[in-house]
């Protein structure tokens, strides 16, 4: 078992003829993901290394039964691509695109809610259920099947942590990069709930960042609802207030969103917070062995 995606997930790649879209479509396929279609308006009938291309997500879904999509279209058009997927009936949309205006995402959100579309991202590396399905730009080779669930706002930091887990023989059910943007799709709480419900997930790693109060909310959620152990890590403890650290999401403002507050919230929820990534496997193992 896993959450959100598995070997039955059928993926359509939006923007498959772009540089990144083409590259990662092939990477996903090589990993074993069931990439059933690509979308590129005006290129219907062509194919990319055997992946058939359609004019629209609607056409792709009708022809292939795709139920998940991954978006590589440029930022100015990304929100529209999300809408297209949602209206076409795609259940899970993974938006890799970086730099999507916040206003566009705010506009999209009510539609997704109404239509019951689940969104990961934008500005995220995607998600993976090791050995079954990888959607996005994750380096599949560092993941390993197992019983740890992982969610993170960062990219390479996630890989760093996954690598440590894998090196310590702690494989993963599903790992999700939720993206660092201020307004994004599925967030810690929804994913924590999914991991709580997934029988194969025995423990969860939560990788947070400064900015916002998503980690504080996650901490409260864990305290109230989670029975499974969670270990956290917060990046950006030394970041100066008001400075952007690469992600639009990582701004400390209004006196909330500091690493101290987040660490305190986790402490109150009984969630151990690793001082450095290398402590994570050990902290989690201790809780799992209890």
């Amino acid at each position: 078992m896993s959450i959100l995606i598995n070997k039955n997930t059928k993926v359509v790649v939006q923007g498959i003829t772009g540089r990144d879209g083409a590259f990662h479509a092939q990477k996903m396929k090589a990993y074993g993901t069931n990439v059933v279609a690509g979308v590129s308006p005006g290129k219907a009938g062509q194919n990319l290394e055997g992946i058939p291309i359609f004019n629209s997500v609607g056409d792709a879904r009708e022809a292939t039964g795709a139920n998940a999509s991954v978006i590589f279209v440029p930022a100015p058009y990304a929100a529209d691509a999300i809408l297209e997927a949602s209206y076409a009936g795609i259940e899970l949309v993974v938006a890799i695109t970086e730099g999507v205006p916040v206003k566009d995402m705010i506009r999209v959100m009510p539609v997704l809610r109404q239509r019951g579309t689940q969104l990961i991202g934008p500005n995220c590396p995607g998600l993976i259920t090791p050995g079954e399905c990888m959607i996005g730009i994750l380096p599949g080779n560092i993941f390993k099947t197992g019983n740890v669930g992982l969610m993170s706002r960062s990219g390479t930091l996630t890989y760093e942590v996954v690598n440590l887990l894998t090196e310590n023989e702690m494989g993963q059910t599903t790992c999700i990069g939720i993206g660092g943007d201020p307004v994004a799709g599925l967030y810690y709480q929804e994913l924590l709930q999914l991991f709580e419900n997934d029988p194969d997930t025995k423990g969860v790693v939560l990788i947070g960042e400064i900015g916002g109060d998503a980690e504080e909310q996650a901490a409260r959620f864990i305290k109230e609802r989670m029975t499974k152990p969670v270990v956290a890590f917060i990046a950006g403890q030394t970041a100066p207030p008001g400075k952007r650290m690469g992600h639009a999401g990582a701004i400390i403002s209004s006196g909330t969103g500091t690493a101290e507050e987040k660490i305190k919230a986790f402490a109150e929820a009984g969630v151990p917070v690793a001082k450095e990534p290398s402590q994570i496997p050990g902290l989690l193992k201790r809780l799992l062995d209890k």
Partner: protein
Amino acid sequence: MKIHEYQARNLFRKYGIPVPDAVVCHTVEEVEALVPDDGKLRVIKAQVHAGGRGKAGGVKLARTKAEAVENARKILGMDIKGYTVEKVLVGNAVDIDKEFYVGLINDRNNKAVTLMVSAEGGVEIEEVAKVSPEKILKVTIDPMMGLMDWQAREIAMRFFPDIRHARTAADIFRKLYALYLDTDSSLAEINPLVITQQGDVMAIDGKMNFDDNALFRQPELLEMREVTPDEQKEIDAHAKGLSYIKLDGTIGCMVNGAGLAMATMDMIKLYGGEPANFLDIGGSSNPQKVIDAMNILLSDKNVKAVMINIFGGITRCDDVAKGLITALDQIKTDIPIVVRLSGTNAKEGLEILKSTGLPTVKTMSEAASKAIELSKI
């Protein structure tokens, strides 16, 4: 992106939000020329991208034209939190009866824009939020319907018992929201919004920030952009595909990925050092990027050692190693450099780097300790 108070004021005006009359002056001579000698009370305000300018002496009253000139002379050229004051806004002072706070912000939790209104205007809203959050009314705006007429009026009526004031305030809320949307704003504040003793409702001071991701479709905003030298460095870095923020420590770091870069800085601190910067080179093994990054890094004279922290994902570590060699060949420096490679093909990468004689390590912790150690030599 931020703009100055006077620029926010111009936008307010464009959208029909009432503001007192004022002029922007760059020199004392301009104040002489533009401010009439009519005996009206005026406020001279420093235009800098820094908060707390009042406390820093950047805001002064003037009862006469002579006093206005005198105070402008004092403020122009003043240093406020590292920013030199190059402009002042000289505006008519109004007789304030009551002050309010009005703000719009992108709300992460509700995934929508939130309107905040408080009767505690004229002070730092962050303070109000900390001390008495119940004094701030927060209303999430339905992205589909926007701030509806009835809704703006209902909110306004809670703060303005006189229906005429309430209607003007509601109108201002709606105009501010239109401005916010049209400009892809991420923060728009009127603080204070006042009722004058004459019974007018107007915006006395304003602040606006904008979504950098949307600047591509906001050419007018780009024209308003003013950057400090430090910001220019960050913008130049961004143009090269790098994300750079200067800090005050001695350990320069170069990392792929923002989260990992932050974790790297944290680790330097954890191990007793101080990071000199945040520098994310993104996901690429392009040697040019490494060269650009190193040049930016080393232009900071405080840097005593450099920690390169690369996690190979889709990008393979051996490719990164090759890029590093090309780059380091071109950069001649005495500053010690520690390289950490991990992830995909890390072994091969480390092998390649051996020839350079650079200290190479496999974990972040090792890299941090080593860099700190070398910085103290």
